[in-house]
């Protein structure tokens, strides 16, 4: 009996293959996009952990500050168990250069090279051998010593002896000293001006990239939710259409429990099918997006992520779990109703859609409540989680409110319509809202996400470009190898440039946290261009006089340092805050002192970096001349335009993945709309047939369908604009501030919204085209059957 009943239940899918396809594709899309995003995140996090674990840097305390090998020697002589590390970006590449001392480096940790081979140690010490991770062999810039692959080295790392690394970087500085033994007791005496930092859970990179991955996760979740809307609609309809069958099976003696069990088994089978397809799709999505994500993370945070993707058993399990959870969520309600269904409950496939209209009112109230919750989180919430809770409540609340709003608008339209056909179209459209509501909600979410993220990226781009113009006001940026070369260069530049502005910096603590301190000259370049957010009167005069300091926005927000307060700059002393400036893309705190005050605090800091002001038409000539005569590599004499171009390319790359996910989500929503319209088209014959019988042609009826879909999509797009703007505000004013420490102005882009609206209309038109075409070509006999069948 069970087998016969199962066959009867499955026969529904044989007769409704498109419905089955819709369900499976919806489930596969939901699972696939979620799994794809999770795979990217997992791959990236694994790479961060591997990088952090290199040479045990994630577990050992470190000494930071202005350090050279002399300091290392002094520390060793004082009995400190430390090892020097150079950790910087490899010139002319995006790779990370790690310089180590093989004699004092901690052994046994991932990435420690094996130098026991004949001649290996000598080669390493003399700069004739370096080690690289497997993924960077083809990306090495020219001019490096011979490289050997070290399989367990984290992605994107080049490992060299510390002297070799310093030679490559053209600097005698070391980044920090790792403490391999007991913590130093009297550090200030042995190495004055340095700071001991304890090892912390997670790496700088993983903390920096957390918000990026959180963004990806949010998008994955959004796509999952949109996909589930499709599944929910398809399952709900399939259950409703099979009610007569359920009734018959129950009447023939199948118990309610067994029927529910069979349908649950059906859901499991669909889970396996949809889950498998979803995992394959997720793998493809991850494989397609991972190179972009890796490039973004490399460009934005200097984080290296392996480009290869491995399909772990955990993936399969997660995929099936998500597909199963999705189906349980989407089909649970139907199963619950079925379990409580009286044997003789009538089949009501048409009433199904209308019955939901009662629920729409409750849904509207729920939506309003969620918007209140979102407003409360936005106004009062603290932290990144509150920001995302605000986002979630805003999006779900707006989606829940959409059907009641559409219904109300269509109701007014129906009342104001003049002709009978217009009146019918308005009223009929209103009646379709419950059946289309899930797809329209999915469309609203996708459009709002597009508008919100698009506005955020646009605001970011405009602000960032303007900020770059302000921050990079000088025409050339010069770095000398040492003070002697600096003196020669400055002598040579005498009379050829209008100003030479030294750039000096030191590592300090700002309110106890590691930060960078800069000294700036009193010059119009800063007065005219520096991107100030808040400032006291006569700021530049007071800064030059050493009466205070500027702090960047991140430090100001983190430590509540605004004009009027005092900032503690550790070894440099405490200063009144004179102003706050924007400093996008920098995760660290930063402060600025006038040059005399900086020199007084750090008299030993060499002046090696300079900003050069000169007429624009002489930039190329001076750059080429200096580079040729002083044999300066490109990274030591940089044109302002080159820095801007590089910064902007990094910026564009950063949001390439977000744009791809945006498009994917919109695609899923368009599919949801198509699936709903196609499904409803089959159910709508009994509603259309009487109108046709009263004298409306099939052509006219068919033309009304795309018009209806366009109207609903258009109304949804219009409603998506305020939701998207609210989303952008939350991203810019809440999430960004929490994640990055800076706040951006919201700059609306109405032309972008219009384009998006047009795309939504095109998607809706295409989604409605096939059902409309079918209606147009529908043989009259099919419509007549509506009257005949109901006898």
């Amino acid at each position: 009996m069970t087998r016969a009943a199962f066959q009867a239940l499955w026969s529904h899918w044989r007769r409704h293959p498109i419905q089955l396809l819709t369900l499976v594709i919806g489930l596969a899309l939901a699972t696939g996009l979620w799994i794809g995003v999770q795979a990217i995140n997992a791959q990236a996090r694994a790479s961060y952990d591997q990088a952090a674990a290199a040479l045990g840097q994630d577990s050992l305390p470190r000494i930071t500050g202005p350090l050279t090998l002399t300091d290392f020697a002094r520390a060793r002589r004082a009995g400190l168990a430390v090892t020097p590390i150079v950790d910087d970006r490899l010139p002319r590449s995006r790779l990370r250069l790690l310089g180590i001392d093989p004699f004092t480096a901690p052994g046994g940790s991932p990435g420690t090279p094996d130098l026991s081979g004949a001649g290996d140690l000598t080669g390493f010490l003399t700069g004739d051998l370096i080690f690289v991770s497997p993924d960077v062999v083809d990306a090495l810039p020219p001019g490096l010593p011979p490289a050997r692959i070290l399989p367990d080295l984290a992605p994107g790392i080049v490992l060299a002896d510390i002297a070799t690394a310093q030679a490559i970087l053209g600097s005698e500085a070391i980044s920090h000293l790792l403490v391999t033994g007991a913590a130093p007791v009297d550090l200030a005496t042995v190495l004055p001006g340095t700071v001991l930092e304890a090892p912390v859970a997670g790496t700088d990179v993983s903390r920096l990239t957390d918000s990026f991955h959180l963004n990806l996760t949010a998008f994955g979740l959004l796509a999952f939710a949109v996909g589930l809307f499709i599944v929910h609609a398809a399952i709900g309809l399939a259950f409703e259409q099979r009610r007569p069958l359920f009734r018959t099976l129950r009447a023939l003696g199948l118990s309610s429990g067994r029927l529910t069990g069979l349908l649950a088994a059906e859901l499991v089978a669909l889970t396996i099918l949809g889950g498998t397809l979803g995992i394959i799709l997720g793998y493809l999505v991850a494989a397609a997006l991972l190179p972009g994500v890796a490039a973004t993370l490399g460009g934005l945070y200097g984080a290296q992520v392996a480009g290869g993707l491995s399909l772990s058993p955990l993936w399969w399990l997660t995929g099936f779990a998500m597909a199963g959870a999705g189906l349980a969520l989407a089909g649970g309600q139907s199963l619950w109703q079925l379990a409580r269904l009286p044997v003789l409950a009538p089949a009501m496939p048409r009433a199904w859609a209308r019955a939901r209209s009662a629920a729409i009112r409750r849904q509207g109230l729920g939506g309003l409540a969620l918007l209140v919750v979102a407003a409360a989180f936005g106004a009062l919430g603290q932290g990144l989680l509150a920001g995302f809770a605000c986002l979630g409540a805003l999006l779900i609340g707006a989606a829940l409110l959409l059907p009641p709003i559409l219904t109300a608008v269509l109701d007014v339209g129906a009342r104001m319509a003049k002709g009978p056909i217009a009146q019918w179209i308005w009223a009929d459209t209103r009646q379709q809202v419950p059946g289309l509501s899930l797809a329209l909600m999915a469309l609203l979410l996708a459009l709002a996400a597009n508008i919100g993220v698009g506005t955020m990226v646009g605001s970011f781009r405009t602000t960032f470009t303007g900020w770059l113009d302000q921050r990079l006001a000088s025409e050339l940026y010069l770095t000398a190898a040492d003070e002697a070369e600096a003196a020669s260069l400055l002598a040579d530049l005498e009379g050829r440039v209008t100003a030479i502005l030294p750039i000096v910096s030191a590592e300090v603590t700002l309110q106890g946290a590691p930060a960078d301190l800069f000294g700036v000259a009193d010059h119009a370049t800063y007065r005219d261009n520096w991107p100030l957010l808040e400032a006291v009167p006569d700021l530049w005069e007071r800064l030059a006089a050493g009466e205070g300091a500027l702090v960047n926005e991140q430090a100001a927000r983190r430590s509540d340092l605004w004009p009027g307060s005092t900032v503690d700059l550790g070894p440099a002393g405490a200063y009144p805050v004179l102003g706050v400036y924007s400093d996008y893309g920098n995760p660290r705190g930063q402060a600025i002192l006038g040059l005399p005050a900086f020199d007084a605090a750090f008299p030993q800091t060499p002046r090696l970096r300079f900003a050069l002001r000169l007429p624009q038409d002489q930039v190329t000539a001076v750059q080429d001349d200096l580079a040729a005569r002083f044999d300066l590599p490109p990274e030591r004499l940089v044109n302002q335009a080159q820095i801007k171009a590089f910064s902007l390319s990094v910026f564009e790359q950063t949001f390439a993945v977000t744009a791809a996910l945006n498009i994917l989500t919109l695609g899923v929503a368009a599919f949801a709309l198509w699936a709903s319209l196609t499904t409803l088209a089959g159910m709508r014959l009994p509603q259309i047939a009487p109108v046709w019988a009263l004298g409306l042609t099939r052509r006219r009826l068919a033309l009304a369908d795309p018009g209806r879909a366009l109207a609903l999509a258009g109304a949804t797009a219009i409603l998506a604009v305020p939701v998207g703007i609210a989303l952008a505000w939350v991203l810019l004013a809440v999430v960004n501030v929490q994640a990055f420490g800076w706040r951006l102005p919201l700059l609306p882009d109405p032309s972008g919204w219009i384009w998006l609206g047009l795309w939504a209309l095109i998607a809706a038109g295409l989604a409605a085209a096939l059902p409309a075409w079918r209606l147009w070509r529908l043989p009259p006999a099919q419509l007549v059957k509506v009257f005949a069948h109901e006898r």
Partner: protein
Amino acid sequence: MLLTVRDVEKSFTTADGNQPVLRGVSFDLEAGRTLALTGESGSGKSTLLHLVAGLDAPDGGQIVVDGADIAKLDDPGRAALRRGTVGLIFQQFNLIPSLDVAANLTFHARLAGRPVPEIGPLADRLGLTDHLSRYPEQLSGGQQQRVAIGRTLAARPKLVLADEPTGNLDEATGDAMMALMHDMVAETGASLLMVTHSDRLAAMLDARLHLRSGQVDMPQAAPRTGTAGA
């Protein structure tokens, strides 16, 4: 002659092959007359009604409604015929679910471009005064059929086609509906072609045409044969 049906044939393709439903049916109906169409299930009554309404096209023969040969009309032409000349009343009422009772009542008349009757007296006559703002699904079967009758007759068609209009109603409600329809048809001067299983209801009309296996069953059509008003 308002309606002329000559040698009409219609068949449907099924899994068992081509199944003839109507085999050379002929009859006439004069303006202002009423004709009952009776017969066993599957005898082709509803198919014939649908053909006369222009809902489907015959395979052979001729159907002329108010001077228009249905076979020669294209889809818009048949739609115009249904809008302007014909009024349909179905067993399942087939009201427009998205419109309320008031809108349903006037819908056909407005579609046909006819003067819209005053809704108050019409609703009063139909006993629907308290239900004008309700939707079809909120009405009983009898109330829905009253809306269907009102909708058709408000449009003042020349030919009313009713397909078992009381088939879903109890006998008392059915009789009341029948009386209402009969009176209103008489008032508007329309002709009525009604499919019914009921001899009692058929006897209330001017003539009866009995179909058997897709053909006019002449003996049972007596005393007034297939021509109403001839």
